[in-house]
């Protein structure tokens, strides 16, 4: 249940493997969102698994055989850390060597993400957008709207309330830092979006969902959700209508490098907006459900 620890371990491992950007994402996602999502689903379903009467032997054998086959397959794989592995010989050297001249920003990952492989990322953002819409479609009908009576969301936890109040500001500030510092250090729209959403989630956890909804209404979040994708696509369209390829940012600025900078900034902003809106609206949808739990489930 405490899958958070899993995330801590993987983030440490990723730092060791030099993937700081990925570790950053894993940290942002694993520390808050995934735990919260799992817990809110558990709150809406049963906590205990009913006794499993299936045979255990067959899955075990299947898994074991598949594993052995895969191990056999690895024998031909390139060795760990081998600089001559096929994966390093195709497009990656171009990215590593040309980023400084063509994009002019130190973080190669951001450059590849937003510029060289902008199409890929556009697709990913659309997938996130679609998933967010799907969650809203599935759950929006059963969201409980107003609450009569007192909200008893941790009212009496004075220490928690004060510390949360102190922390939310820095978290939001840090999200902005990550958003706009992504060109130079690890970070970018994906991470910033998740961190931004986490700030609202912690606010909702401690001060009550209703209070959070008053600060950031669900309607606004849904508008942001679509606006982010529009910003991304719109940035691509600008270059499209000026006789360039879709998502070719060189036309946006006076020089090609300046254009790339501006384009990446805009695109990352769109990504951050969509990601944070999806996360917040997903949380609203899950947490706003009527808990159908009867006592015998517990």
């Amino acid at each position: 249940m405490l899958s958070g620890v899993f995330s801590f371990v993987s983030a440490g491992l990723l730092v060791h493997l030099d993937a700081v950007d990925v570790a950053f994402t894993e940290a942002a996602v694993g520390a808050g969102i995934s735990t919260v999502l799992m817990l809110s689903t558990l709150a809406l379903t049963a906590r205990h698994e009913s006794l499993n009467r299936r045979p255990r032997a067959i899955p075990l054998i299947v898994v074991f055989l598949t594993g052995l086959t895969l191990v056999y397959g690895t024998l031909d794989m390139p060795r760990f850390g081998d600089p001559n592995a096929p994966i390093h010989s195709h497009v990656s050297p171009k990215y590593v060597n040309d980023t400084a001249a063509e994009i002019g920003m130190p973080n190669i990952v951001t450059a590849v993400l937003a510029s060289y492989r902008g199409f890929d990322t556009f697709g990913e953002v659309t997938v996130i957008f679609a998933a967010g819409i799907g969650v809203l479609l599935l759950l929006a009908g059963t969201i409980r709207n107003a609450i009569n009576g007192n909200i008893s969301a941790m009212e009496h936890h004075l220490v928690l309330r004060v510390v949360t109040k102190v922390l939310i500001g820095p978290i939001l500030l840090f999200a902005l830092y990550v958003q706009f510092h992504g060109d130079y250090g690890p970070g970018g729209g994906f991470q910033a979006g998740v961190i931004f959403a986490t700030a609202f989630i912690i606010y909702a956890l401690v001060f009550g969902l209703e209070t959070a909804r008053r600060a950031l209404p669900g309607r606004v979040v849904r508008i942001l959700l679509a606006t982010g994708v529009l910003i991304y696509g719109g940035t691509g369209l600008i270059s499209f209508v000026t006789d360039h390829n879709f998502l070719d940012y060189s036309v946006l600025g006076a020089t090609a490098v300046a254009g790339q900078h501006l384009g990446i900034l805009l695109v990352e902003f769109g990504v951050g907006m969509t990601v944070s809106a999806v996360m917040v609206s997903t949380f609203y949808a899950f947490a706003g459900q009527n808990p159908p739990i009867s006592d015998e489930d517990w």
Partner: protein
Amino acid sequence: MFTATALALLAAMALALVRLYAGPSLYDRVLAANSFGTKTVLLIGVMGFLTGRPDFLDISLLYALLNFIGTIAVLKFFRYRTLGDNVEGEGKP
């Protein structure tokens, strides 16, 4: 020097994992997970120095900020049985 620190932190993390696995009550587990998180923050910081690129402290900083959200979510869930608002009278603590 940094290697020794990293090794000590790893040992401490292993011990926290032992408690996480054994912990008789839920709260023991939450406590162990929380302390595991603290040690991860330190380990990532030390590892930055170890590899000579200490400008990646952002990850540590992020964990330092977000570490307690998971803890609070778990505690709230097991106390109120929901992560949303609970109306007075249902889901007694």
